[in-house]
């Protein structure tokens, strides 16, 4: 894979990972096999755009749940920052720390910005078999919203999808 190449495409198998959601708990992608998973990579806790994006997702959670989908947010911030951030924003989904080795999982999804050392603002919808079905990379500073995720979840439920 060439340096700086694009994010993981639909049709590819999502690499499994196991990342801390709290200091003593890990969350693995394979734990959610059998249900859709939304991965939201984002650059940093506390930055204004991310705050809007993840707060929005916390509010849209009931809609994601209608598709039995889990949402996992991922950045390179350490777990203590994540805990404070999630508490402050009342986030109702796991916020995972891709901290050590830094950005390892983000890189596997092609969602890491080498020059600044942060995850890119990238979204993935993974189906119940662990296959990426939709992915989206946002331009810097643009909050992608939730419309693309919901459309992708709907697509999973079409006859073609299963």
């Amino acid at each position, binding site marked *: 894979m060439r340096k700086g190449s694009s994010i993981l495409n639909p049709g590819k198998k999502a690499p499994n990972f196991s990342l801390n959601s709290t200091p003593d708990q890990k969350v693995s992608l394979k734990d959610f096999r059998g249900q859709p998973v939304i991965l939201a990579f984002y650059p940093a806790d506390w930055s204004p755009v991310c705050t809007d994006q993840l707060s929005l997702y916390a509010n849209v959670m009931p809609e994601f749940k209608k598709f039995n989908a889990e949402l996992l947010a991922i950045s390179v911030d350490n777990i203590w920052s994540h805990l404070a951030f999630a508490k402050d924003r009342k986030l109702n989904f796991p916020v995972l720390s891709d901290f050590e080795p830094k950005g390892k999982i983000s890189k596997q999804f092609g969602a890491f910005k080498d020059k600044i050392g942060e995850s890119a603002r990238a979204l993935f919808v993974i189906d119940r078999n662990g296959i990426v079905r939709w992915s989206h*990379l*946002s331009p810097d500073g643009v909050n992608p919203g939730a419309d693309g995720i919901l459309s992708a979840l709907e697509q999973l439920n079409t006859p073609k999808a299963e």
Partner: protein
Amino acid sequence: MATTTTARHSRTARRTLLDPASKQAETYEPPKLLVPVDPSRDHVQGDAKAVLTLVQYGDFQCPFCGAAYPEVKKVQKELGSKLRFVFRNFPLTNIHEFAMVAAETAEAASAQGKFWEMHDFLYEHQATLGDHSVALGYAKKLGLDTQRFEREIAQHVHEKRIKDDFMGGVRSGVNGTPTFYVNGVRHDGPAEAEALVESLRAKS
């Protein structure tokens, strides 16, 4: 990342987006409003035949919406009869504990024909949203049937409409509050009068 692709397109469009499916960068296109303005349902201020329509998705407790409130007034003043302004609810209830009841308060006033009065009052009194007696006092001053007003808020009569506004916004790409649409296209610039007027003028 994708330095070569981004650099190639940076001259043509400041906001570029990489299409992950094609691996090609494409010109960024802001999302479009999927729920058309319906004067029989929407809160509309201004001439129905106005050439320009500004739609705002807002949360009464959101400080950024509070800051945008006088900006919208400036836009309305500047564009006058050319502009129609529409407000839709987008309460971010997990971070704003009073956002839903404030939206219900505005809708309960709307049921008695006083939406815009209450809308303005709530934005001008964001600091006291936690004290419902403030809005109730204003409802009295407006001459509303306060029994009906209070009952509709307590029984969440307008909750479904607010949630419908919210979901219509989510599907249209509302990504935070406030989010504006200029003639049906999301305005990604600042929520300031100058930027909004510029964006609106570009459509006229």
